[in-house]
């Protein structure tokens, strides 16, 4: 398995997109900290990168990469290698390179400019979000053989979690504003990995505001150790479940 991961990693590195992604991330991060006079604004820029750019690049790059490696996968399948090993190696290879890119691009500027709880939380959450959207990309690309369709599904998935889901939540909030729905809303956030990530960062970034009103309810849940582990557990589930489903499908797929 290690040999295959090594081959995949060198192949991804040769693919210049990851290098470009790393450079763009680091340009964004360094300039965010360099241009603004206070680090809070730089953190906000990186927060938007984590909630917007990282998911998009992770899901798109992975989906396209998987479609482009169909030959490679076929070649490997005629070799004495277990099927799930091939799929897992692809997953580990892609995850490792995207996490590495995020860490070099955004993580190091964060460590230098905001070496505190917010910074560390952002790095951790950014890495997790990268892997979550890689796992989702695995699921998207196994659903259909058609590359164009697969990429379409990937973009829709991203759009759903980045934008539409929050729109639905806002709509629900105002439709059901008569009812005590705060606690239910905490549960609803579990349905979107981006929201889970955002709230964890928010609790550190906007700590004063989160202490007020319903913020306190979220703080009471997500801010405790139990809540922290729960939301990281949920993020891990967002990695494990899509990948496991895709793996099951891949094992049964005819190539």
């Amino acid at each position, binding site marked *: 398995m290690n040999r295959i991961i090594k081959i995949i990693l060198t192949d991804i590195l040769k693919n210049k997109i990851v290098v470009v992604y790393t450079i763009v991330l680091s340009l964004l991060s360094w300039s965010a900290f360099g241009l603004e006079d206070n680090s809070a604004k730089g953190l906000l820029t990186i927060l*938007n990168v984590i*909630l917007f750019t990282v998911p998009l690049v992770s899901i798109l790059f992975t989906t396209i990469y998987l479609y482009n490696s169909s030959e490679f996968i076929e070649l490997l399948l005629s070799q004495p290698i277990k099927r799930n090993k091939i799929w897992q190696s692809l997953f580990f290879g892609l995850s490792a390179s995207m996490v590495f890119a995020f860490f070099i691009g955004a993580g190091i500027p964060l460590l230098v400019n905001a070496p505190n709880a917010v910074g560390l939380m952002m790095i951790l959450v950014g890495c997790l979000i990268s892997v979550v959207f890689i796992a989702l990309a695995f699921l998207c690309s196994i659903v259909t053989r058609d590359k164009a369709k697969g990429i379409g599904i990937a973009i829709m998935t991203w759009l759903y979690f980045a934008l539409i889901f*929050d729109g639905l939540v806002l709509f629900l909030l105002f439709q059901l504003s008569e009812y005590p729905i705060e606690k239910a809303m905490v549960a609803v956030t579990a349905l979107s990995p981006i*929201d889970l990530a955002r709230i964890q960062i928010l609790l550190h970034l906007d700590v004063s505001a989160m*202490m007020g*009103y319903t913020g306190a309810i979220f703080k009471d849940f997500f801010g405790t150790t139990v809540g922290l582990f729960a939301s990281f557990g949920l993020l891990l589930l967002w990695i494990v479940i899509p990948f496991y489903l895709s793996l099951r499908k891949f094992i049964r797929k005819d190539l």
Partner: protein
Amino acid sequence: MNRLCLLFLFVVATFQAQVLEVGTNKPFKTIKLALKASKAGDTVIVHKGLYKEGNIRIDKKIVFLGKDFPVIDGQKKTEVLSIHADSVVVKGFKVINSGYAALDDPCGIKVYNKSFVLIEGNQLDDNFFGIYIQNGRNCIVKNNTIIAYGKEEQQIGNGIHAWKSNDLQIIGNTIRGHRDGIYLEFVHDSVIWRNIATNNIRYGLHFMFSSNDSYITNIFRNNGAGVAVMFSKKVTMINNYFDENWGASSYGLLLKEISDSYIHSNHFKNNTSGIYMEGTNRIKIEKNSLQGNGWAMKIQASCMDNEIVNNNFQGNTFDMGTNGSLVLNTFNNNYWDKYEGYDINRDGLGDVSYHPLSLFAVLVEKNPSAMLLFRSFMITLLDKSEKVLPSITPDNFVDKAPLMKPLKL
């Protein structure tokens, strides 16, 4: 000649005034005996030791001094020290364990209807009320440390409590763990200076029905709320620190039904709401620094003719919050770190006006649960479009000439 006069006075004074000493090896074994023997103008010195004598009543004009902090213990049964005379000095005691009662508010030290009482340098520990000035004039409460361990608002009194008093000086006290750090009701022409109120259950400092008071250079940290000024007028607030007052109904400074006041060079840092204003009129808020608050200011629609000038708004989650669309207050020349305008003529003022009320702040006011969506991509998008084309937020909620650079405060 002068010298002779002084000497004469001194001799007279020493002849008339006695010093009565209390302690295990001293003429008086108990405080009560010494007080009984004393006359007006005497000094009673209490030496180190533990005195459990129930309620101690001082009804003569004496100087009551503690040496090496003798402990006067109320054993959780009675009020500890009751002062029923003018010009009494109480200094250097450790007063502990006053009784607890809902009706007659037993205190560590209480002044009943008297003037010119000086309470200085005492340590009060675990009393129901700390120091209570009832109907006092020209009393001074200075450099006392007042600590209690209250858990619930109903089960603990205030650190320093003043009722129906004038011309008080409350200076340099440290108050922890009471209901309100300092509570003033019907108190006029008084000054509160250099006190530190932390971790009190309700407010650090609380005004009710008071006027012409000033509080200057105090620190209010981590209380239920920093300072509440209610139903009062002409209160001057200068150079105070309002820090880390966190909670659902927690404010750095709560202004309710107050008018004609002045708020200058205060520091509001990391509070859920920096300043909350309700029914507030004709107040000038000037040169304050509001930093890292959830809401820097919440101005309810019931406020009018307030002026918010030359303040720094930095790193707040929301600069403003409000509950209505009516705006009768003016904002001028403040620095807002969220301002993205430009200054072509280089006069230090932005050429585009700034709307400090964001759409999302309005949404959250209407539906607090929406806070859950804060900083999501969609909300950012909504906020940006609202900034370009205001439709929901009131368009006269505006600083027409915001500062380009923060003021040095």
